[in-house]
């Protein structure tokens, strides 16, 4: 039998792991996406790398951390980040670069500096795509955080694996159900946040 406290602890560990990775990923992605706007070479490298990492099975990404970084929280964070980075960078870059050139032209024409164009025109125009990417990355991070229990990250994965190994359904569900609920929570909360920062204009 699993004690409630264990489940709560694991859920908390899980949340910490998912959200830390997500925020680190966002912090890394946005400057890279802006960088890609300026350098075709950087754009090429980032996109190729991100696509490549996306193609590798999640479990392999998690496993490959061990020989390099050992086990524990940090290697788990790096493993999840490698997967979560791509949707954020890719969507942010697409959002930033897909701004109607007439808008940029106009913004320059009325005397906005490059920085102001990024801040007031490109970034807000990229929000819908960016949030779609972040939401997807969040859900991805949540599911990979289950796998990283194998390399000692803690979290709900630990309970799920215990349940699987001991063929103990109630233990398994005590891990799986909170994980599913977290996924739904992430989806709903980011959808709400997205609605808040991107008002009516994006819909008809």
């Amino acid at each position, binding site marked *: 039998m699993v004690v409630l406290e264990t489940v709560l602890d694991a859920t908390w560990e899980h949340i910490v792991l998912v959200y830390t990775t997500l925020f680190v990923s966002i912090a890394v992605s946005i400057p890279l996406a802006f960088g890609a706007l300026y350098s075709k070479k950087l754009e090429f490298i980032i996109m190729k790398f991100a696509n490549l990492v996306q193609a590798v099975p999640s479990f392999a990404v998690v496993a490959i951390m061990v020989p390099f970084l050992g086990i524990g929280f940090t290697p788990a964070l790096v493993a999840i980040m490698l997967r979560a980075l791509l949707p954020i960078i890719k969507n942010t870059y697409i959002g930033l670069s897909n701004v*109607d050139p*007439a*808008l940029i*032209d*106009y*913004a*320059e*024409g*009325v*005397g*906005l*500096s490059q920085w*102001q164009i990024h801040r*007031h*025109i490109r970034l*807000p*125009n990229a*929000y819908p795509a960016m949030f779609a990417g972040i939401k997807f990355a969040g859900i991805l991070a949540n599911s990979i955080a289950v796998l990283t229990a194998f390399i000692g990250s803690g979290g709900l994965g630990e309970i799920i694996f215990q349940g699987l190994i001991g063929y103990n359904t109630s233990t398994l569900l005590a891990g799986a159900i909170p994980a599913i609920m977290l996924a739904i929570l992430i989806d709903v909360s980011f959808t709400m946040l997205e609605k808040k920062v*991107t*008002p*009516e*204009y*994006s819909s*008809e």
Partner: protein
Amino acid sequence: MQTQRLFDRIDSIQFRGITKKYGEGFAVKDLDLEIIGGELLILIGPSGSGKTTTLRMINRMIEQDEGSVTINEIDTKNVDPVRLRRNIGYVIQNIGLFPHMTIGENIGLVPKLEKQSKNDIEERVKTLLEFVSLPPEMFMNRYPKQLSGGQQQRVGLARAMAMDPPLFLMDEPFGALDPILRKQLQKEFLKIKNEINRTIVFVTHDIEEALVLGDRIAIMDQGKLVQVGPPEELIFNPENELVADIVDNQRKFKHMDTLKVKDLMSPFEEKYILDLKTQACDAVDEMTNRDLETAFVFDGDELLGQVEIVDLMKCRDREEKLSELAKPIKSFQPTDSVAFALSEMKNSGKYLAIVMNSKKPVGILVSDEVLLKLI
């Protein structure tokens, strides 16, 4: 970042020996041109003639290879482009309203970057919206997508005036609008132009627009200035074939007596019809959707009159139906003579009339358009 005012009024803008190359070819070659303070100068020519390039060299969106552009004898090369541009109103064809900002935010963007106070900006936005006949309380918080093409273009105009610049650059501002809407906005623009009395450089490829709006017209071809002067000079003393072609083409003199209304009217479309029971505010929304500035009210087959969106926008104050608001309008038969129709319209002070074939509307007659087709 607050930028200092560069000039309060324009005395003159001088292009001296301007050349701009594009690869092997020339976009503009050895151009000398003076724009006189207070005038509306039209730049016109076939595509690739260098008119837009010339316009964009004034605010340094394009840098010339040779020669100098001076505004009030200040070489633009010596002015920070950001500062220069904030002293110049800019209007472009695709309007370029920022879709993620409300109308108010669009108009107030540059004032906000100039660190003006929130209250000042709001006041300014309201004044400007009223100036272009858009009731502020109705439009300030809408997004560009919720506006019709004509309304968006008005906002574009209001936005260019936000910093009260002494100089405006306009690159085919009415280019994307349908002909009737275009005529009406031009008319309004003329009114605005006379009120604000600023220097305007205006690119177009539409000679009718040029003749209606321009104080002087500069005709360009293959990167060179062919002729510049007031409209009548270009019509009566064209420098060469090309000029004669541009000002005269398709406008061979037609004998007015032989022309019928049906020869010169614009076709009528179903979308111009509104029902007499419609509430004024609903009519505004409906006309916005259909991209109309003017509409005709019918009672079944019976023509009641005409309504204009500018008048209907006061709908918030009173609740009225279109049947009470429709203003009488002249109607003609397709076979009436144009001379007769025009003199009737002139006597009643109307620039628009409807053409009815017995009970069926078939066309719209716009006096300016008729005149231009006749020149």
